[in-house]
Each structure stands twice: as C-alpha cells, then as structure tokens.
C-alpha cells in the first residue's frame, strides 16, 4: 500500500517537476538574456557616452585653441594697426615741425624773430619755446638763427597742447639749437644739452628715417617716455636737424588700451627682441620673460621676428602660453599677444567638466534604472516562480487527480470490490482507461458470476461423478477374504481408478461348487458412457456365465447382446477364465484383452498363451474361442489391464510389459501373499511414473490355486 501511495504522489511530483522545471529554465534563460541585454546596453551606453565626452572635450579644446589663436591674432593685428595709426599721427606732428623748420630755412626773410625762454622756470604751455644749446654750440653766432628758429615754438606748442600723450615736442638743429615745447615742467641745471650724442638724434640723422626709441627715462628725470624723431632737411636736401616728440609711456599704454579678449595681454618688442612695452593689464616682468624666451630660442625668434604675423604655442616656465604676433608695417615693432593655456582652455575645461558631470548624471541614471530594472526583474522572477509553483501544483493536481481517483478505484478492485464507481470525464486517455476499467470490471463480474455458477454446476457434476464412481466401485466384489476359508484357491484384487469414472472392471464369482469364474475387462473410453457400458458388460458377463458353458460361448453370447444398438461404437476388451477348483483345469477366452501371466510353481511368471479374439461389441457375429490349461498346486493366474503396462511418466514413457515381467520374476512369489505381490507391483508402478498423472485405471486380479 505504501508503495502504491508513493507511486501515486510520484506522478504528481513528476508532472509538477516537469512544469516547474520547464518554467524555471525558461525564466532563468529569459532573465539571464534580459540581464545581459540590459547590462550590455548600459555598458555600451556608458562607453559611447564616455567617447562622446572625450570627443566633445577634445573638439571643444581644439576649437577653442583655434579660436584662441584666431582671437589672439586679431588682438595682435588690431593693436599693431592701432599703434600704426598712432604713429601716423605722431609722424604728422613731426612732419609739421619738419616743414615749418624747412620753411624758416628757405625763407628766413618771411619770419621775424620770435621770443624764446632760456630758463625752464618759465611757465609751460605757451607758444614760446624753451631753448637749450648743444654742448658744442657757438651761442654768440647763433643768436640770429635762434631768434628766427624760435618761430617753431608755435608748431611745437600746438602739438603739445593738442595731444596730452605727447610730453614734449622739439626741434634740434644741427647748428646746436634745441627748441622744446613741453607740457610738463622740467629742470635743467645748465643751458646746454648734449643732444647730439643722443641716440634719437644720431639714429634719425644717420638713417634719414623716422626713429622710434624704446621706453626710457626722460633725461630730465621725469616720466618714462618713448622718443619718435625724424630728420629735417632743407628744400635743397641739406640736413638741418631732427624733429621729435616724446610720448608719455604711461599715456601711450593707456591709449593702447586693453583687449576684448579676456585675460589676454600683449607686449611690444622691437625687432631685436628688445622689450618695449606691455599692455596695462600685464606686468612688464611677464612681457620681459616672454621676450627673453623668444630671444633665447632661435627657431621661435625666427618664426616671430622674421614673419609678418602668426601664432605660436610656447611652454615658458612650465606654463603653456598661446601667442600671436604681428609686425608693424612701417616700423620695426612687433606686437605679441598672449594668453595662458589654462585661461584659453578654460571654456573647454568647463565644457568638458559640464559634459562629464552630465554624462555622469546620465550614467548614474542609467545604472539606477538598470538597477531598478534588475530589481523589478528579480521581483517579477520571484512572483513568476510563485505563480509557476501554484500553477504547477494546481495543474499537476488537475492532471493527476483523475489518475489518483482511478488508482483508488482500481485499488478497490484489487481488494475484491468489483463495484467500479469511478466516473471520470476528462475526455482524454484517462477517461478511456476508466471506461476500460469499468467495462473490465463489468465483464469480470459477469465472468465471475459465470464461473461461480459453472463451478457450482461442476461441483454438482463432480459430486455426481463421485457418486457414480462409488456406485461403480461398489459393484466390484471386495469379499476376496470370504474365499480364504476355501483351501482350493485364493484371490486378491486391486483397482486404482484414474480421475473420473473409468471403464475397467474385474469380477469373480463361483459358477457352481467346483467352478470359479474370474474376469477382467477394459471398456473403451472414459466417463459416464464408459461407466454405463462397463456396468452393462459386467452384468451381462456375470448373468450369462452358466455352468457347463465354456468362456468362449459365454463371451459369444455377451458380445451378441452388447452389439445390439451399439451405435456409439463402445467396445470392451475382456478376459474370462473359469477354474475348476478341484481339478485345476483352467478354461478361458480372451476378447482382445491384454493376455494374463501364468505362474508355475517355482518356475516363475510367463505369458498365458491365448487365442486372439475380437474385443466385445465389435462384431455381433464373432465366435469366441476357448483355451485351456491345467494348473498345479501353487500356480497363479495374474490378470491386469493396460492401465498397468501403459502407466506413463511425464515424459510419456510407458511402464511396459517387459518391466512387469521382470518385476514379477524378481521375487520369490511362492513365499508371498497375493496382496504382497499386488503391493509390490503397485509400488513399482508408482516409483516408475514418479508423480505423473494417472491416465487410466490400474486394475489387477491375481488368483492362486492350492489343490
């Protein structure tokens, strides 16, 4: 029972396992694919994002650098133009001085003498110029010339009063006069000024071109200035002197102004790389450093000072610097605009940082949503698992329920309850199976009923047969002991009937006082017909055996009677012998029966020779012949049916006449009782067949003659 129960639940478990297993595998595969998909997409997204950031940063950096360079170049070029414009103006001033001086030289008669100051303590800002003599000047001879040339004071004053960038405007003659108009007081200790030794004078005189000095201190100890000078020639090309203006470096710086470009400085160098001036927002130190770096680096120097303009990226004292340079067209100045890389690339850094921050935000968002997707997936997985579990159990229960019901009902059958009440309507094989079981149980019930009634009938039949057998056996004489008192002979018989009623019989009776009749017979076939025929035969033989009739005559009569109406073709083999118990004469007739053995005292058993006659009930006209022998004292006649010789083993081996013969002669029969002889034979037969079913009646009759 326990085993059955286990089996029942194991189907449910199996179905559940299959459902759960398939679902689980599907879920896991889907989850893994989804997880990897999401993971891969996120990963790819972040990678692309990073790439975008890098590209964007790089691009913005590059473009900003380009933009910076462009802007710087604009600054340097713009400033160069600006300086040139300023210089143009200053040159016009110089031209005014020059032409005025030239006019005075060529037409001295037109100009009357003009006043001039020899003391610098005088008030500045008037049309009267100050006069200083050169060191080598002959003051006496120059007084006339000084009076005329002093007219230049008007022009000089106009220049200084008009433009506050100009500190001084002056005209220095080759003859040794230095007229100056200044809008700032200056102190000169003596009246001479050795201007001819000055660079501005010599450079202008020697080159014949406009000369621009660097920034330097005013020889009178005032502001820092830049000198711009130009040689003055007469109409006939004679060198007369040098016109010049001093520019206040501070004002100049102011006029140069700033740049629109944030944190951009510019510095001006002359073409020898000498530092001139830096823009106001920028220290001279830095400008000088850049100048030194450029001067000390030949390639860079060549690039900057030998080309009209361009841009450079330099690394100065571990600082990346972008520079743009523009050479002035008319002058030997170079404007260098520069900006620190950190400042230039600041926007791109800001942009990059912005993008990084943004992308980090995006990545975080992606990771967050991925995480939430994963959590959602996990929760869904768990819910699905629970649902699968419930679904699996429900489904497996649903699938197995009819099976379980069926199993229980079938179990009932095995317990003997044939009422099959299982009503399964699943519409599938299980319903078929259930129907089959129902039909089977119904058929089984019918069959059992049938078997019951049949076995009842059989029992009945068997009982009747038993009765028949008993009747049959009861008609065989078993009063052999009654003859024991008779000293002439003795008789022993044995019949072992086969299953059912057989057809063997024996008989012995006294025909008259002197004659003993012995007979043995075997009716063909078995069962009730054989039994009936045996009864008839036995009755006829005993009835027809009359004194003075030979056995042949008796059997002839019996045969004739048996043949009447024997449509069933039953027949019987029979041996009939009649012994004269006084004389020992034994007359006999054999109707197709197995010939008996005859025992001669102390000689042994041998075949009794018989005349062969047809069995009884075969042919009504048969005449049965009689044989006869004489028996002596102690002789025996042994009658048997073929049940003895044809007793068979399971292998269908027959006992045989030879074995019977050998057995009979194997013991000293004279010392044995008849019962002992029969018992010996029976024992040997049983030993031979070794438990095989008995097919035929085993019948023996033995008689011993004493007289």
């Amino acid at each position, binding site marked *: 029972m326990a085993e059955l129960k286990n089996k029942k639940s194991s189907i449910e478990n199996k179905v559940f396992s299959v459902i759960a297993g398939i679902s689980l595998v599907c879920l896991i595969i889907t989850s893994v694919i989804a997880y990897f998909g999401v993971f891969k997409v996120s990963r790819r997204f972040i990678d692309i994002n990073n790439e975008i950031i890098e590209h964007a940063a790089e691009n913005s950096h590059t473009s900003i650098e380009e933009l910076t360079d462009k802007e710087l170049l604009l600054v340097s070029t713009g400033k160069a133009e600006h300086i040139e414009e300023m210089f143009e103006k200053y040159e016009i001033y110089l031209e005014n001085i020059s032409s005025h001086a030239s006019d005075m030289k060529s037409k001295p008669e037109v100009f009357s003498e003009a006043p001039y100051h020899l003391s610098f303590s005088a008030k500045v800002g008037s049309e009267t110029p100050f006069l200083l003599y050169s060191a080598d000047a002959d003051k006496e001879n120059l007084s006339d010339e000084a009076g005329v040339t002093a007219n230049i004071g008007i022009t000089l004053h106009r220049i200084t009063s008009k433009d506050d960038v100009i500190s001084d405007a002056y005209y220095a003659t080759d003859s040794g006069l230095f007229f100056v108009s200044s809008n700032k007081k200056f102190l000169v200790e003596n009246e001479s000024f050795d201007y001819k030794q000055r660079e501005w004078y010599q450079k202008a005189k020697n080159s014949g071109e406009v000369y621009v000095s660097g920034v330097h201190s005013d020889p009178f100890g005032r502001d820092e200035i830049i000198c711009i000078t130009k040689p003055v020639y007469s109409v006939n090309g004679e060198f007369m002197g040098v016109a010049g203006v001093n520019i206040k470096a501070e004002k100049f710086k102011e006029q140069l102004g700033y740049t629109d470009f944030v944190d951009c400085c510019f510095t001006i160098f002359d073409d020898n790389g000498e530092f001139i001036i830096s823009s106001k927002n920028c220290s001279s130190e830095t400008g000088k450093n850049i100048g030194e770096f450029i001067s000390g680096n030949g390639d860079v120097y060549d690039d900057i000072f030998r080309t009209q303009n361009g841009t450079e990226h330099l690394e100065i004292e571990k600082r990346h610097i972008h520079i743009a340079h523009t050479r002035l067209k008319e002058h030997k100045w170079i404007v260098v605009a520069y900006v620190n890389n950190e400042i230039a690339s600041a926007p791109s850094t800001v942009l990059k940082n912005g993008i990084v921050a943004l992308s980090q935000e995006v990545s975080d968002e992606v990771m967050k949503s991925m995480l939430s997707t994963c959590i959602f997936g996990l929760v869904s997985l768990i819910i699905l698992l629970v649902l699968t579990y419930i679904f699996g159990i429900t489904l497996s229960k649903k699938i197995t329920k009819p099976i379980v019901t069926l199993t229980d009902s079938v179990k009932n059958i095995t317990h003997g309850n044939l009422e099959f009440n299982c009503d399964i309507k699943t519409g599938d094989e299980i319903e078929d199976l259930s129907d089959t079981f129902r039909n089977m149980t119904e058929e089984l019930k019918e069959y059992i009923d049938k078997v019951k009634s049949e076995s009842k009938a059989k029992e009945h039949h068997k009982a009747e047969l038993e009765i028949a057998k008993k009747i049959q056996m009861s008609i065989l004489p078993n009063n052999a002991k009654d003859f024991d008192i008779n000293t002439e002979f003795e008789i022993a018989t044995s019949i072992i009937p086969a299953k059912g009623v057989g*057809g063997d019989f024996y008989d012995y009776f006294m025909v008259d006082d002197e004659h003993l009749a012995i007979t043995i017979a*075997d*009716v*063909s*076939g*078995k069962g009730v017909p054989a039994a009936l025929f045996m009864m008839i035969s036995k009755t006829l033989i005993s009835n027809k055996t009359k004194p003075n009739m030979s056995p042949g005559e008796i059997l002839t009569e019996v045969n004739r009677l048996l043949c009447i109406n024997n449509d069933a*073709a*039953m*027949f019987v*083999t029979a041996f009939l012998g009649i012994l004269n118990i006084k004389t020992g004469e034994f007359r006999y007739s054999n*109707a*197709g*029966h*197995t*010939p008996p053995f005859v025992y001669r005292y102390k000689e042994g058993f041998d075949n009794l020779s018989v005349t*062969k*006659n*047809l*069995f009884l009930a*075969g*042919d009504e006209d*048969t005449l049965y012949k009689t044989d006869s022998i004489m028996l002596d004292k102690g002789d025996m006649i042994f009658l048997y049916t*073929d049940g003895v010789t*044809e007793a068979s083993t399971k292998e*269908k081996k*027959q006992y045989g006449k030879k074995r019977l013969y050998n057995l009979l002669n194997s013991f000293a029969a004279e010392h044995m009782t008849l019962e002992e002889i029969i018992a010996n034979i029976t024992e040997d037969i049983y030993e031979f067949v070794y438990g095989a079913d008995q*097919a*035929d009646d085993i019948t023996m009759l033995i008689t011993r003659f004493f007289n």
Partner: protein
Amino acid sequence: MKLETKMLPGDITVVSLKGELNYNTSEEARESMMSVVENNKNVVIDMEDCTYVSSSGLRVLLLLGKRSRQLGENIALVNLNEEVKDVMEMTGFGTIFNCYDNLDTAAAAMA
C-alpha cells in the same frame, strides 16, 4: 495429435496420424477422420508417426471401420509400429481392418 491428408493416384486418400491417439485427442481425431472417410472411397490411415493408441483411440478406429463398411468403402491401416500392432492384434482389430506394411502395398491392394 496432428492429422495430415494427402491424395495418391488411384483415388486413394491417405490420412497421417501423428502423436498419441488417446482419450484426450480421440474426439478431434474422430471428427476429422470421419469426414475423410465419408467423402472418400479409398482411405488409408498412415500410423507411422502414431506413437500410442489407447482404448479410446481404438474406439475411434472401430467407428471409422464400421462407417466405412456401412458405406461400402475401403479402409486400411499402414505402417503400424510394434506396440500399436501388438495392441491391434491383441484386441483383434486385425479382423476389422486391413493392415499393410506400407502405402504401396495398401494402394496395390485397393486398386
């Protein structure tokens, strides 16, 4: 028990009995052979492979013989083995049936 039927020239039907002819097989043998006997004029029963004949078997043979005689036909037994021959002789069946050693002699006798 097995039965085989074959025809020989001269309108002779040969029925071969194989196995034991006993109480259990006799009824089947009777039915089969009776129809042969009723439908054929000359019947030879070949007993070569018949190992045992019980009294029930003899009864079947007796029935066949009687029927054959009734119909005025010929019936014969051939190839009887020693044991069967003994039984036949002992019971006197030899007087009802013509017994021959083999098919040829039986056929010759019937022709």
